């Protein structure tokens, strides 16, 4: 092979092998999950090592007990906020005598509590990791909530860890319902931490800034009904539907504790 044709040959080889792997990607996913599960202890080791460093630094900037207390207080505040959001939604349901579904459906769902232990592992990944896994009964598709509302959905499960795709992730779509009008639409994620786009709301529907948006739980939904998704932050008229931005109910930057609902949609 001449030296001038070699790069072309190598390029073709890279292209061919990458496309082969891409084509087989979905069938290779279980193998990828297995490798990740094998790497979990390594990640835990790193987490423990860096936690030691942060505790060491904490002696100068604060105290571990204070941080723990802060996390507990945030959890309580989230629970109070959630109660307020649920109250607003419940009022509408009572007024319209449409309370065929109640929160008992939601509260009857078994849940396990855990903590967010890791953020994304690379720059283009938007998943977070929690310290609950298959051993605690967590499955792919389980909704994850905090006291404040919906966090996201489980997309990967290891023995003691699970990966959660946040509701504001670009690939996320949630069946959502406006608490006052009861109109349903789809809340699509844009990027983690940013407002969601709520689609399919008619132009005639009156939407107020600050209005609560909850999961619709309609047939085929990935989430049970009535979980707060967020509040309306901006409303603009579109050509067919309104363009509504929904600020997520859960601030992932500040959240520590989560609950995984042991519920899988149809």
């Amino acid at each position, binding site marked *: 092979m001449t030296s001038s044709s070699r790069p072309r040959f*190598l390029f073709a080889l890279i292209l061919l092998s*990458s496309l082969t*792997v*891409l084509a*087989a990607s979905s069938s290779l996913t279980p193998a990828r999950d297995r490798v990740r599960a094998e790497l979990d202890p390594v990640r835990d080791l790193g*987490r423990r090592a860096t936690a030691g460093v942060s505790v060491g630094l904490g002696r100068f900037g604060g105290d571990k007990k204070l941080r723990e207390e802060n996390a507990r207080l945030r959890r309580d505040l989230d629970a109070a906020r959630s109660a307020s959001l649920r109250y607003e939604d419940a009022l509408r349901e009572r007024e319209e005598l449409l309370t065929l579904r109640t929160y008992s459906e939601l509260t009857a769902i078994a849940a396990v509590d855990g903590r967010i232990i890791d953020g*994304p*592992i690379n*720059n*283009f990944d938007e998943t977070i990791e929690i310290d609950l896994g298959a051993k605690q009964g967590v499955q792919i598709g389980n909704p994850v909530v905090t006291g404040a509302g919906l966090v996201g959905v489980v997309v990967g499960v290891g023995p003691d860890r699970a990966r959660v795709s946040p509701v504001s992730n670009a690939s996320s779509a949630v069946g959502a319902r406006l608490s006052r009008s009861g109109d349903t639409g789809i809340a699509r994620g844009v990027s983690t931490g940013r407002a969601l786009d709520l689609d399919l709301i008619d132009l005639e529907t009156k939407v107020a800034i600050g209005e609560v948006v909850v999961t619709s739980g309609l047939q085929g939904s990935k989430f049970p009904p009535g979980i707060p998704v967020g509040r309306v932050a901006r409303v603009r008229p579109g050509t067919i539907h309104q363009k509504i931005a929904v600020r997520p109910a859960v601030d992932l930057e500040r959240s520590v504790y989560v609950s995984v609902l042991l519920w899988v949609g149809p």
Partner: protein
Amino acid sequence: MITFGVDARVPVARVLLLSVTVLVLHVMLFSRFSLFAVRPEPFLLLAIIGALQLGPSGGALLGCTSGLAADLLSSSPLGLWMLVCGIIGLGLGALQGQLNQERQGTTTMVAVASCTVLGLLLYPTLAFAIAEKSFPPPLRFLTILVFACLWNLLLAPGFAATTRRLLRAKRVAR
């Protein structure tokens, strides 16, 4: 050991060992380095350093293996990082002979900065084209470009020294 063409012997076992080592280091350590929620891109860095030290064949192989390691940790379809790092490794390896050999340090840093940016532009473009994944918002994307580049520049001297030491014994002079 396999031979591509006439001038470069690629130490396959060592290349694989390097990729696995970087995978473990990233999972344990590098993924915890975070500036404005931006982490280093060690797999891309390995492809770049490998290309500078091994030429096109070795760069392509090291790029593909380190890219595959990156794919194992990503939520995108497998093969995307492999393609990006493979192209970067091959492209930079092909240019290796034309780079300034007298000022190796500067050349390495310029190559790391430019190829990190190129790889980070290429990856979401391919992810959008192949896997229909949306681009990160512009400000976030710019932050990733700037800080991942800085991280890689910081890690480059250590990577270059370690890689050189590991690969030197098996390199065959051109």
